[in-house]
């Protein structure tokens, strides 16, 4: 298959990445090369094969729903790019 720059631009918005027109060109070429390369995954017979999400199979782990110490607000906010006393600040979400 071949991805067009239009399709790659759509993926970039889904991925929340701003790409310059030059980057879009480069990535389209490189993504197509990688997608062509991974096409060989269609070769082996995988009928009846269960997908494997973890190499070492993991099971659900339960614990009591007990309250423990949590991160103090100041520590949680310390790395914020923009904040006030008690919250993270972002551009207005509602117009």
């Amino acid at each position, binding site marked *: 298959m071949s991805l067009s720059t239009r399709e790659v631009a759509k993926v970039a918005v889904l991925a929340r*990445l701003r790409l*310059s027109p030059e980057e879009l060109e480069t990535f389209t070429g490189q993504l197509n090369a990688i997608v062509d390369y*991974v096409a*060989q995954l269609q070769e082996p017979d995988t009928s009846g094969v269960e997908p494997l999400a*973890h*190499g070492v199979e*993991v099971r659900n782990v339960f614990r009591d729903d007990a309250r423990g110490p949590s991160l103090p607000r100041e*520590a949680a906010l310390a790395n914020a790019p923009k904040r006030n006393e008690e919250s993270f600040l*972002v551009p207005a979400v509602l117009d």
Partner: protein
Amino acid sequence: MNADLLKDATAASLLAKLNAGEIRSEELVRAYLDRAEALKRLNVFVHLDPERALDQARAVDADRAAGRPVGPLAGVPVAIKDVLCVDGEPTTCGSRMLKDFRPPYDATAIVRLRRAGAILFGKTNMDEFAMGSSTENSAYGPTLNPWDEARIPGGSSGGSAAAVAADLAPVSLGTDTGGSIRQPAAVCGVVGLKPTYGRVSRYGLIAFASSLDQIGPFSHDLADAALVLQAISGRDDRDATSVDRPVPDYLATLDRKPESLRIGVAREFFGEGLDPEVEAAVREAVRVYEKAGATIKDVSLPNSKYGVPAYYIVAPAECSSNLSRYDGTIFGHRAEDWSPKYPGEEELHPLVRMMMASRAEGFGAEVKRRIMLGTFCLSAGYADQYYNQALKVRRLIRNDFDAAFRDVDVILGPTSPSPAFKLGERTADPLAMYLSDIYTITANLAGIPGLSVPCGLTKSGLPIGLQLLAPAFAEENLLRTARVFERETDWNRKRPALA
């Protein structure tokens, strides 16, 4: 005097001197700090706070002087890959995105190192978000290979591998998602161990591909690898995938010859693209094992050729999800200006543009490429064809190992298809870079442990690594099997000639 102290040093040899009272940890840390200053050009550390290291050393010295009990790594410096959270210390992941990030807590592996008395000695350079095989994807410039400064140290844990190779720390921690401990260990001539998935808690390890990532040690020899592995292993309530199994005393059993020494040689690990000098060194290692009484058997891992393509679906898919947290809101870089710049952006909400601009500025090219690839593979209409198919092939790869390990205890092969390549040689071609991990990647997909030990030098003096793979949770036998080779050879005692 300081230089002599570090000559041929290992964690074990330094511990012996510390415990005998011949040296103090403060003195040792000062010697390593001096060396770090003298070898700054290698660009091993992205962050090294002398006062913090010295404070820890003085605290351990005080405990020893007062006769208080000390941990198994008391006073020994350990360099830390900059992907592991250390409370209050810069943790950048090799990225502009996290340039000013200071985590509010320690990773569990760090908590355990502290408990063992280790001195946290700097944060080491790495490929951005652990994506790469050369450390050239770091936003802070590449690390140089101590054996040849025109060459890459491997990656993504290139800084941690070079730290040990250049005697900038006796041991270090790295992480391995597709070979990022074993491949740099091989090309830097040190030991690197990737434990079984779930052996070491990933809490506080900045996630790249959560079903593949695992923390492990770099060292000069297997005794030090055993020592560090023991310190960081074990169940952790904060990582639900960490496994509740007892942690063996890896060091105590290291010198016992394995009860069963059946070694599998997988023909798929000797394919096209393997450097002839690497192949010769690995074939020689097979002879060393034969002489030591091992049974050598041919094994086949027919689906291993699909390892790299399966990995380059699974890992980017997981990364595209994990890295969505870097959006300029809670932590990390935020762009100053997100007004529409390119065609079509006027239609996007300002909040979306803020995220897109922040991520565009914060991430480097390889990270963007993998986020794009992963987003594509998981997008509507493609998930079944790509992601689910990759997971099915992943099971075939694991089934191959399960079958092979019915006949052998350990599988042997080269770690990396070539010795260290030149800086810049593969940066323009992502696929060529991805093939650096062709022999290491299947262990991550299957979740099994693997290690690389030095097994030779090329004619031009570049290190070669031997990879050994074992069934899940067979680290004890893996270390003992590798120790058989180490005892018969002296490759692990070679050091680069650094001026």
